[in-house]
């Protein structure tokens, strides 16, 4: 996995949700350097693997995944002195308060409830990608 520069890392186990997200990002021309990993364990290996200094500019993280869930992945990222600067946006199906509170406590940068309506999702992705990729410059 030696891409020149991964801009967005999408960690999502549901292939349908992933496809819709990638489509939305493509539509907004934000999917040029997108990497999709469907397994959270693999994603952690990618991020914390030996000699990998190639951090993505933005991580889109699904909350509910088998084995290691989104909260645990978030905990690992935000607990690491080097990687905690990477903006993480939590994607989830629910607006359960406990998840939202927990995610913010762990230092998530944004929290998005995946809407049933796809066009709404497009809007969300649009705002999201624009802000984190263009406006917000993470420290090198």
């Amino acid at each position, binding site marked *: 996995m030696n891409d020149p520069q991964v801009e967005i890392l999408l960690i999502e186990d549901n292939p349908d*949700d992933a496809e*819709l997200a990638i489509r939305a990002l493509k539509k907004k021309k934000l999917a040029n350097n997108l990497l999709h990993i469907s397994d959270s364990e693999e994603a952690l290996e990618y991020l914390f693997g030996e000699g990998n200094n190639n951090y993505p500019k933005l991580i889109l993280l699904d909350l509910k995944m088998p084995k290691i869930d989104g909260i645990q992945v978030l905990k690992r990222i935000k607990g690491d002195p080097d990687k905690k600067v990477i903006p993480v946006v939590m994607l989830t*199906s*629910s607006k359960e308060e406990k998840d939202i509170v927990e995610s913010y406590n762990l230092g998530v940068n944004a929290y998005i409830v995946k809407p*049933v*309506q*796809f066009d709404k*999702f497009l809007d969300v992705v649009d705002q999201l990608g624009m802000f984190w990729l263009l406006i917000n410059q993470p420290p090198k």
Partner: protein
Amino acid sequence: MMKLYIDKRALLGFIIALLILVLLGYFSYRNNNHFIASRELGFHATEVLNHIEQTQTNTVRVEEILAKYIITGDSTLLNAYNAEVKKAAQHYASLLEFTKDNKSQQIRIDSFKLVGRRKFELHKKIISAYTVSKSQAGLMINSIENKNLSVKITSVLSSMRDEENRLLSQRLRDGQIEIKYFQTTFSTLMISTFLILVGVFILINNSFKSRLIAEEKIRVVNQELEAFTYSVSHDLRAPLRSIRGFTEVLQEEFGTVLGKEGNRLLNIVMRNASRMGQLIDDLLDFSRLGRKTLTFSKIQIHQLVTEIIQELTVHEPRNVKWEILHMNDIRADANMMRQVWTNLISNALKYTKKVDVPIIEIGSFPKYGTTVYYVKDNGVGFDMKYSDKLFKVFQRLHNNQEFEGTGVGLALVQRIISKHNGKIWAEARVNEGASFFFYLNNPTV
């Protein structure tokens, strides 16, 4: 009347313990009275004995004085004689009075009286004989008859003394038996009260324990329910998202190939997927509300209503004639109040859609010692015979083609208001509009 929540057996135990306490009080009171009475009886007996002794002394002295008189002829001794007789008569009268409730003593006193009278008459004869013959009187005083009378008097008096002593010791014995009886009863009652109270304590303790266990069960069930709604919220929404999302993609990429009818069908799929999503969201809101605790703060209703109207009409301008009257502030949960007003106002907006000049009036008035708030519209209204269905989940009085909705809004509103110990009701007529009234039990700020 006070409502009882206590175990029936515990209540019975309490009642029995109370009755025993009353009984104990009664026993103590009675025992005390007995004690006082037997002490008085004791005094009485001593008094009687005293009078018997005195009478005995008097009769002996009367005999002595008379003998002296016969020997000396000193007429002053006659006065002394009379004085002693009088004293004896007084003691006799006292004894008669003191023993009037004792038949056997009365009989003895009667025989004393008889012997005494005979003695007195004999003495009278002796005194009158003395004026005739001194020796004759001397013979009479030493006669066997007079001596027998003296012996009889002494024996009657001593039998009276014996009887009284017997009575006294009898009373003492009775008193002791009574005290023992009282002590036994008292301690039995005491111990049974103690045991009953211990039993009642155990019962109450057990009922508390079972209540705590029940509460724990409810907590577990609530947790399960929470986990259930959580997975419903996640797992039910995900496939819907795909249905809706990919239908949209299909329409975008192959819309031109599918033609007009194909697109119409796709729209139906998308609309229903969205509606199902809305239903799930509303239902989750509704179930989540049950678990929420209220956070009270002062709310400026007038300002809140103005804000909500602005939010609701910003994307969908309407030519509604608004009549917002003055409204009192209220203490309630701010988020929930916002939900209540948003639902009521958006309902009013929704159901006045087909009216030419929609008028929505919002205000309050004092009633039931609190403030009643209302939202009144001139929309389609509804038939009052269905009013009981109005606040039930998924119950709708209009179909989805006419007016969109999931039938959760008013159920949610009612749940919020009942969480605030309040009440909501509606008045309406078909095609003449509807009014919704509610009050919270919390006094107006």
